[in-house]
């Protein structure tokens, strides 16, 4: 019987083919002629965003998209800055609303109309007109406004029932209602009366929910004219109301990771945080979760703020920019939006997208009421201004400074930084 001699070269070639074959088979969606683009995102491989990317790649439209998870908004922005400096920007980045000015004026986010005016108009037409202004900076259309959230209230219904509270939760609540329930929860479940209960309330110690309180009280962090409004009596009143539960011992201010972990573990009864948690909380928590609107300020009209991110194009080369537009068109389509809704953002498109969960209803109601933008920090030192405001919020919660003193100081610091 003839026998082929196995040389070292043949063996290595065989091994290489064996290793490469699965990779080649996996990459059936991508072709050598495809334009390959990278999206710097805040979403890992297990998220609905990856599903959007995979569905797009499967279509074989001549563009292969790679989702690169780059951490939170700040981390992704820093990495993109480094990439822009090196002349290799990602084609797209999920950019936080709050970094809108920075994206346009410093990172060089492209005007979609400049890439392709007709495609840009068709693209933005997929989204409701009220969000167009959020992606319009210096008269340029700098992205696709597809990820919108707003802070709402999450309630652990097991605690609620254990404390004997009325299960009919109003659609609109204010701080009087919320703080009264927090006190009732503390009285009924505190001191070891409930095995998992540790604290009744968390309003989120950050610059976002504090902005909600300031605005609901009639004030402003930075108003529409660009003026810092922290020293206004309404803003001070809003922050005094924000600090009440912390000063009363009803709220232990912690970071978002600890807050989420404590709520999911059943240690916290009420949390006000991003509406995107409508996906994570019920999946992870072993108890019923209910939601309602963010608390308003008694006697004041509500003026809630939005949050989230937009998809902006940073590619400099024409082919990469056009490929990015092709992906954005899919993101704005009915199919793309159906997949994207799994992340838990509000539907800001004109498409009829099924709500991922009934828990998102309060956020949709707040969107229908009208949402202002998240504070967009202007100037070359805008990030420092945001940090100064965050520090001021923490100092007020810790009672390091009385609220009026801290607000006056924050006013001066923020005004100086955004004017620099």
């Amino acid at each position, binding site marked *: 019987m003839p026998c082929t001699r196995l040389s070292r070269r043949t063996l290595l070639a065989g091994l290489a083919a064996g290793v490469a074959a699965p990779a080649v088979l996996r990459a059936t969606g991508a072709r050598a002629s495809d334009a390959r683009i990278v999206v710097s995102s805040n979403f890992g491989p297990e998220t609905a965003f990856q599903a959007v990317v995979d569905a797009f790649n499967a279509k074989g439209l001549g563009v292969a998209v790679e989702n690169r998870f780059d951490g939170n908004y*700040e981390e992704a922005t*820093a990495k993109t*800055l*480094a990439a*822009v*400096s090196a002349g290799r920007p990602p084609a797209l980045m999920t950019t936080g609303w709050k970094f809108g000015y920075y994206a346009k004026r*410093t*990172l*060089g986010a492209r005007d979609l109309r400049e890439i392709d005016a007709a495609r840009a108009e068709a693209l933005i037409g997929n989204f409701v007109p009220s969000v167009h202004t959020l992606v319009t900076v210096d008269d340029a259309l700098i992205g696709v406004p597809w990820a919108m959230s707003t802070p709402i209230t999450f309630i652990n219904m097991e605690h609620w029932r254990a404390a004997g509270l009325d299960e009919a939760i109003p659609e609109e609540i204010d701080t009087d209602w919320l703080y009264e329930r927090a006190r009732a929860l503390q009285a009924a479940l505190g001191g070891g009366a409930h095995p*998992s209960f*540790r*604290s009744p309330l*968390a309003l989120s110690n950050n610059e976002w929910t504090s902005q909600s309180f300031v605005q609901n009280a009639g004030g402003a962090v930075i108003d529409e004219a660009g003026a810092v409004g922290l020293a206004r009596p309404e803003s001070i009143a809003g922050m005094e109301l924000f600090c009440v539960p912390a000063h009363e011992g009803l709220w*232990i*201010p*912690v*970071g978002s*990771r*600890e*807050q989420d*972990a*404590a709520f999911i*573990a059943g*240690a*916290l009864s009420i949390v006000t945080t991003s509406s995107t948690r409508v996906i994570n909380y019920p999946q992870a928590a072993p108890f019923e979760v209910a939601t309602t609107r963010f608390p308003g300020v008694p006697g004041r009209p509500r003026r809630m703020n939005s949050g989230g991110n937009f998809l902006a194009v940073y590619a400099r080369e024409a082919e990469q920019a056009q490929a990015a537009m092709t992906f954005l068109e899919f993101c704005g389509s009915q199919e793309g939006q159906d997949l994207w809704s799994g992340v838990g953002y509000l539907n800001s498109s004109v498409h009829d997208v099924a709500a991922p969960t009934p828990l998102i209803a309060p956020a949709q109601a707040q969107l229908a009421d009208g949402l202002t933008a998240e504070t967009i920090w202007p100037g*070359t*030192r805008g*990030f*420092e201004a945001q*940090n100064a405001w965050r*520090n001021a919020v*923490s*100092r007020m919660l*810790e009672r*390091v400074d009385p609220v009026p003193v801290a607000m006056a100081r924050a006013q001066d610091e923020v005004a100086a930084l955004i004017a620099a």
Partner: protein
Amino acid sequence: MDAADRRALSTAGLVAPAVLAVAAFLYLPIAASGLLAVLDYHPATQTFRFAGLANIAAVLGGDAFGRAAWNTLVYCLVLVPAQVLVPLALALGLREIAGSRTAPVYYACLFAPTLVSFSVAGAVWLPLLNPINGVLNEMLTALGLPPSRWHTDARAALWVVSLVAFWKTFGLNLVLWYAALMTIPKEQIEAARIDGAGFFRRVRDIDIPLASPTAFFILVTTVFTTLDDIVGIIDVLTGGGPFERTTNLPYLLWQRGLVFFQFGQASVIALVTIAIVAILTWVQFRFVERRVTYA
């Protein structure tokens, strides 16, 4: 070319890669930092503008730098003695049980935290320290003690960061001390014991002098670690907060450079940090090394 020239040339050839590496990755960045400190530069826009002393004034005139410098000093005053003396005490204890069946268990337990990175060390402690339902507070409550807010309490945060940094780093110094102590001839220790020297007398007059080269190495490297490496723990555990109560100079440098994108200010902080490290190292070599006994 004679033999001496050839020898000199080959020596230069052998040394050149190291010299070039140090020049490219140490001195050149320092020089670039010096230049950036007087420029208003942004890497994305690639724009340069001469800023004069504006960056220096912005850094030294702000509250953040003073707080970070103070915090850095406190970290050093707490962590350097702790990371030198506690591992020494543990190494002395380990030497006493060397060869026993339980000794490897102690080695593994005490050295294990060293294997994780600084940021992972911070992440490991987060669930333990959660002020709402963390393991440590559950233990305190079970013992009838009041819970703490740990790293979220402005008064406690710096001490909590120090504790986690100590947990992460002491194992390496422990190994170094242990290795040095195990090289001391048993005959000398035995002779001292027969002569009536107690434990502490033996440590003071035999162990520490004979292990002094290692002690000096530990001191110098611990100062570096305390000044620089704990930034990973600060970032994960507190993010420099609450309101900058745990920010040290390297964290402030990172924040100014890669969060706020103020590269001129970050360069000023880098130069100040380099100067501090250089002065501290000089002081150590000038005043501490003379006490070192080289065999």
